[in-house]
């Protein structure tokens, strides 16, 4: 018998399968919201922007949200894999800190997300962006990374042109990106 995995408390499915217990305890066991989320096949990293401008990602749960969204088929289980995670500040120093920011292109409805921790320079970032938002050829103009005007919103809420500050400083203060046409 396949063991159903998920963040739902274990009693629910097992009880149903083993034919035990009452309806009452089954409903007590089930955390429906999470179950529905994790038992579906997860989507590739392309997200429909439901509500353009709000800042929903950046709270204490932001890392967890990233895990859910960037879940490539394996479910998020409590305490698995068995690595020690500090309850205070997880992944302090050393471990790779996933740093995902939303990217929108002017005039394009569907936004993307890019993980800045996988990039070590502006060049690398522009390459990724040009792959995410390929430029339509028009009038024989060549498409290359340099033509993009990319702006970013920093931690103070100001919109700045990407490329002015050292990469390290940028990657730590950037909240989201916008590509201008």
């Amino acid at each position, binding site marked *: 018998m396949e063991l159903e995995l998920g963040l739902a*408390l274990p009693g629910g499915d097992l009880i149903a399968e083993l034919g035990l217990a009452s309806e009452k305890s089954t409903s007590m066991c089930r955390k429906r919201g999470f179950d529905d989320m994790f038992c579906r096949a997860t989507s590739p990293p392309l997200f429909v922007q439901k509500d353009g401008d709000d800042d929903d990602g950046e709270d204490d749960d932001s890392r967890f949200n990233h*895990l859910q969204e*960037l*879940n490539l088929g394996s479910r998020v289980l409590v305490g698995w894999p068995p*690595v*020690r995670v*500090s309850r205070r500040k997880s992944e*302090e120093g050393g471990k*790779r800190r996933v740093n995902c920011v939303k990217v929108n292109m002017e005039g394009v409805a569907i936004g993307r997300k890019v993980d800045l921790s996988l990039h070590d320079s502006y060049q690398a970032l522009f390459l990724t962006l040009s792959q995410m938002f390929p430029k339509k050829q028009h009038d024989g103009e060549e498409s290359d990374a340099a033509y993009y005007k990319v702006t970013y919103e920093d931690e103070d809420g100001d919109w700045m042109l990407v490329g002015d500050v050292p990469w390290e400083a940028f990657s730590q203060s950037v909240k989201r990106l916008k590509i201008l046409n």
Partner: protein
Amino acid sequence: MVRGFGWAAAFPDEVWEHVFSFLAADADRNAVALVCRAWHRIERRSRRRVFVGNCYAVAPAAAVRRFPEVRAAAIKGKPHFADFNLVPTDWGGGAEAWVEAMAEGWPHLEELRLKRMVVSDDCLELIARSFKNFGVLSLVSCDGFSTAGLAAIAANCRNLRELDLHENEVEDNCLNWISHFPESFTSLVSLNIACLEGDVNTSVLECLISRCPNLKTLRLNHAMPLEKLVSLLQRAPQLVDVGTSKFSADHHPELFSKLESTFAGFKHLKSLSGIWEAGPTYLPAIYSVCESLTSLNLCYATIQSPELLKFVSRCKNLQRLWVMDLIEDNGLIAVAASCKLLQELRVFPSDPYGVAPPISLTEHGLVAISAGCLMLHSVLYFCRQMTNAALLTIANNRPNLTCFRLCIIEPHTPDYISQEPLDAGFSAIVESCKDLRRLSLSGLLTDRVFKSIGASANRLEMLSVAFAGDSDAGLHYILSGCKNLRKLEIRDCPFGDKALLDNASKLETMRSLWMSSCSVTLGACRQLALKMPRLNVEVIDERRGRPLESWPDDFPVEKLYIYRTVAGPRSDTPPCVWTV
């Protein structure tokens, strides 16, 4: 020949005491104590070291009373799975009861080591005040205290030699706790503050280091900038064990050469750790120590493979290597070629939750190590794929393995070539490695692997199982075999009541059993508790609601922790824990 046990009186007590002093192992001393009353008396009065593997297995007062002359105590609290947040934070493991009993009964205590316990600042203050000759404090994976508690230790323990803080959750409310070491304090031999998050006053630390000529171990925390680290280390060229702070900074040729000359000055360095966030810039500065290193911990260093490879392959005398999977198969192949004295390897996942593109670390790396490192006996390996063939090769290459912990990150992963369960592979491990003491399983596994383990793993003491097995038979095989099993921890397996009840008496021969997300019902727990009065059967359920008594027998148990004890049910259970 004197008849009966009268021969014990043929020698004065001091002679027997002297004889017993050659028995290092607790098991031997325990055996001696059972021979006759005289030996029991002599042994207990002369025992100097006590190890309590489960703080609830015996009442503190009883332990202190039985062994009045103890100088060194080690106590463990929470179950191992607490490391992975499976145990509620308020479950227990508080140190107060023990510290209070020890303060009263062991005034000459010199060493105290606590693991996975909740230690309050009050506890630390009591320790600081109660033991005049206190020399060693080691706190591993503990929580509940702050740097204010550490200040009390620093201020009052005049003869402190070792302060070892390893992976604790410490609240930072006393920034200058290091300055509480008095000016007259010079006895420090080992200081490990790697787990502290806050800044430490570098100049105070420099003074401390300068006046402690016997300092051999210094492990700093992440917060200290590289320049400060360098000036600190320059004061202690006699160090044998160094844990650096953050190892990255913008490139400055002057800093580079200072770092280089500092490390070149370490004539006795054997162990290196820390190296947080190291980049390729500064790592070459410390190549000079590679040859002498026997222990290297790079599991906080996000260095990519080429630099990592360059560094590690210079460490020809390495015995212990802890590293991230960023080393990749190529790196491990290089290690297998260069580090012929390697005994212990741990490879940690740089990206456990799979959000980044996969790393090229597979079963090949481990196979290479098993072939090239003849002295390898301890392995912890996180990877994403495995085959039975690879495990078989490893088993044949390294029958001297004593610890084999394999974690294939995705649960239920089969042999990726044959698509079969990994039963054959793990069976080969337990059949070939006759001295295996610790084993962690992962991947797709049926009941068959448990049959092999039960039959062959005669020296196995600790077994960790997750997402494995088909039925109760799996658990039954383990509990009815594995003669020396002490700790068993299981999560998300279809193991239930029958195997548990059929093997109830086995549980009293073990230290503890943890089962979570399995198929055990409350009724079985009740039966077990009734049948085995010397076991504490703790049902842990964080949903709370109605008290345990009102739940029906068929109620599924979320988490179960069973341990043998002579102290009866504990009195400090939180709301989410019921002793059945």
